[in-house]
């Protein structure tokens, strides 16, 4: 019997070896070009739509991101969207629901398994992986072939919407407008700032949109701790909302152009937070004097008890802490629309104190719509995207649900909507969709005076115009530069997986600890080990490579 078992295992090992070695005779292709699926033809009808689009069959299948809670009426929204698009374009839309936190693994599984999917929403992930591994197709040619005037115009006018590959071709379209141009603000409850005597135009006081620095933050934190040490329920109030992953004060205090698609900064170009001037030197973000200063400051904030003790490991959202009043100020993008959304949701007046001036840089958008390379309906998908851009009914249906059920107009002329029934409000989809932002409605509180709301919305729009005007002036010189990661990709992935994953969260929230002798060990020693690990991982080679590529690109632009 033992011999039989040995025979079986020997046979199985032989099978494994056969499969494992099957790939060894393939031609080594180091260029990584592989082969693209080719289109069958670009004959066009008189309407400018190629015959291949007409030959495509079936409904467009699109990924529909949610944050864990699927709205109960999602199937109604799907049916309404499908019926509407069918009436306009002759085909329907099918949703493939997906939790935004699972997208990296689920998209990979879908693509490997050959799942039917025509449109994906790559949110808060590096799209270059999708481009380099040809998970998505280039769409530059599709734009010219499918008569999509809205897409063409949008991409011509808004460079931030583009997702470009190293080859300069277009691979996706951003949904959100790039909020990087407004920077980050310490957004604090107006009532708390008033109670601390710090709100106003007087000496030592702060007014809305007044830029602040480290010392101002220290003053505010100390004052908040004095006037509001605990919540009504006896929980400790933490003036500094630093939380690993979502509330990183370094991002606001040390603005930079990432010059690439990395989620965390690596080799970057720094900007002066006051003047808005960018250097043209590529640096290791973490070895700069600015970052060292930040580590010391955040460590002091932690030592003083201004930061939640579990900031480095908590999985709770900063919005949850804000709801329980343990946070009275949070880090938000200096975007009046975001502030207004928070005020609407919380019923509180908020003051935004920017940590830097407004600026803008070119990088891949935070959320990008992309077409998988194996999509069987790329042309139909492009037609759908083009319709989405300018169709007011469609984009708001996708964003907010069915009119009359989830929402109704508060003021149609100004595009203001409120809940149709109590508790029905929610955004249906994470990340939104691309399109003309002026036709997307705005949610307001049902109880508010509509005239006051309209005045507020107009104020918000003028605030935004001012911020954008400043941002355009403070534009990174590296706008348009695409970093080719071919030579350093492995090193970058190693740094992200083995170094940043270990140290970044701790340093971003200043975690330290007191020893039994009462001495506080701040993040300083952690910082030293972090830099040592980065050096060992040869981060300097990434910096050198990026600088060389940037210099070459700059010469080409000027030449």
């Amino acid at each position: 019997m033992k011999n039989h078992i040995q025979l079986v295992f020997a046979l199985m090992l032989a099978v494994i070896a056969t499969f494992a070695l099957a790939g060894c005779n393939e031609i080594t292709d180091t260029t990584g070009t592989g082969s693209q699926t080719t289109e069958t033809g670009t004959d066009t009808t008189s309407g400018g739509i190629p015959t291949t689009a007409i030959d495509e069959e079936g409904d467009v299948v699109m990924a529909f991101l949610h944050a864990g809670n699927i709205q109960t009426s999602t199937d109604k929204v799907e049916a309404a969207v499908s019926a509407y698009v069918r009436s306009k374009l002759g085909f329907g839309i099918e949703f493939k629901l997906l939790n935004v936190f699972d997208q990296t693994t689920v998209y990979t599984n879908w693509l490997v398994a050959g799942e039917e999917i025509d449109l994906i929403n790559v949110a808060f992930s590096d799209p270059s992986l999708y481009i380099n591994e040809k998970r998505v197709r280039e769409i530059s040619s599709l734009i010219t072939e499918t008569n999509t005037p809205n897409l063409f115009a949008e991409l011509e006018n808004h460079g931030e919407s583009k997702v470009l590959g190293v080859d300069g071709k277009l691979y996706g379209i951003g949904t959100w407008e790039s909020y990087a141009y407004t920077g980050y603000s310490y957004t604090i409850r107006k009532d708390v700032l008033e109670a601390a005597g710090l709100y106003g135009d007087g000496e030592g006081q702060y007014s809305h949109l007044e830029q602040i620095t480290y010392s101002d933050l220290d003053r505010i934190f100390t004052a908040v701790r004095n006037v509001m040490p605990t919540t009504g329920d006896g929980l400790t109030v933490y003036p500094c909302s630093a939380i690993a992953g979502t509330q990183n004060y370094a991002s606001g205090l040390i603005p930079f152009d990432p010059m690439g698609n990395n989620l965390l900064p690596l080799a970057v170009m720094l900007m002066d937070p006051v003047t808005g001037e960018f250097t043209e030197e590529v640096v290791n973000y973490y070895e700069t004097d600015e970052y060292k200063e930040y580590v010391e400051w955040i460590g002091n904030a932690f030592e003083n008890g201004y930061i939640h003790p579990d900031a480095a490991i908590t999985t709770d959202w900063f919005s949850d802490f804000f709801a329980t009043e343990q946070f009275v100020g949070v880090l938000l993008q200096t975007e009046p629309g975001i502030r207004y959304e928070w005020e609407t949701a919380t019923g509180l007046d908020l003051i935004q104190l920017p940590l830097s001036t407004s600026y803008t840089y070119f990088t891949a958008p935070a959320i990008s719509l992309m077409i998988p390379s194996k999509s069987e309906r790329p042309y139909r998908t492009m037609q759908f995207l083009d319709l989405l851009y300018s169709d007011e009914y469609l984009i708001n249906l996708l964003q907010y649900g069915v009119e009359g059920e989830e929402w109704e107009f508060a003021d149609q002329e100004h595009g203001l909507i409120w809940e149709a029934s109590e508790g029905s409000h929610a955004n249906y989809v994470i990340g939104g969709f691309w399109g003309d932002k002026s036709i997307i409605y705005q949610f307001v509180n049902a109880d508010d005076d509509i005239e006051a709301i309209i005045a507020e919305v107009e104020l918000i729009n003028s605030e935004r115009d001012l911020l954008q005007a400043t941002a355009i002036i403070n534009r990174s010189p590296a706008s348009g530069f695409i970093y080719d990661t071919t030579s350093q990709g492995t090193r970058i992935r190693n740094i992200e997986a083995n170094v940043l994953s270990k140290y970044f969260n701790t340093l971003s929230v200043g975690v330290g600890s007191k020893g039994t002798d009462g001495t506080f060990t701040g993040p300083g020693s952690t910082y030293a080990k972090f830099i040592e690990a980065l050096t060992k991982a040869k981060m300097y080679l990434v910096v050198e490579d990026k600088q060389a590529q940037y210099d070459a690109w700059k010469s080409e632009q000027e030449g």
Partner: protein
Amino acid sequence: MNKPSFIQRIKKSNIKNFILVWLMMLPGLTYLFFNNFLPMYGITIAFKRLDFSLENVLASPYIGFENFEFLFESDAILIYIRNTVLYNAAFIILNIIVPVTLAILFTSIRGKRLKGLYQTMILLPFLMSWVVVTYMAFALFSGENGLFNSWIVANGGSRINFYGERAKAFWPFILVFFNMWKGTGFTFLFYYASVIAISPNLYEAAKLDGASYWQQVKYITLPSIKPIIITMFILGIANIFRTDYGLFYLVTKNSGQLYDVTQTIDMFVFNALKGQGDLVQSSAASVMQSLVGFVLVVSANLVLRKVDSDNALF
């Protein structure tokens, strides 16, 4: 005397007797083949530059060991291997000693109700989800309102950041404790079943010969359950390169400061895939894990064949 040929041995073995046995094994073997062995072809992903535009992504170009380079750019992989091996070694040893001891002690309990109560207490943690255990651990170790820190602060001390670097020396013990606390109930059942299957006549004879309780354990109980101990040991060795996601990721809250003592290869692979969606990087780490694990299992089996060849795996 010449050794009979393969065909002669088959003819001699009266293969008809084994046909029914093989037929019984066929469904399981088929499942094993399609679920465990056929997908092994996917191992080639680790040696390729993926091109999803191809009809079959597995036909992507082969680039040798390029995807493995990142593993050796830092000494992190050695730390992860060390953590994996040491933790599993501790788990294997303690997962034998503790349940065996409990099983033996259980035989001394006379009261039926007490026995049932103790059995429930031992088994209950095994039935809990690791998510629940995570929050129990957090309730103990939280920097803000954790039980330990509340007690420390109430007694005039300074809070300890248990998820921070200065407390990382605690974590090997914490993880081993939670693994034992949760897993003992299940393995205990195997050993207890073996212990109660031992013939009482042996114990009676030993008592007549004047053997003490510990002598009975040493000369009767332990030798009798030796086969199951070796089997469980082999199973543990086979999984020595796997780690429990719930324990190493959830309970530690994936705290980067503790990576030196808590990060294992499985967790590294998971973080790489979850965080970056990088299939090739995680595949390369997985291949590395499998190769080293294979070497360990074969080595352990070689040692076991010297000690007790009858119970060796192969």
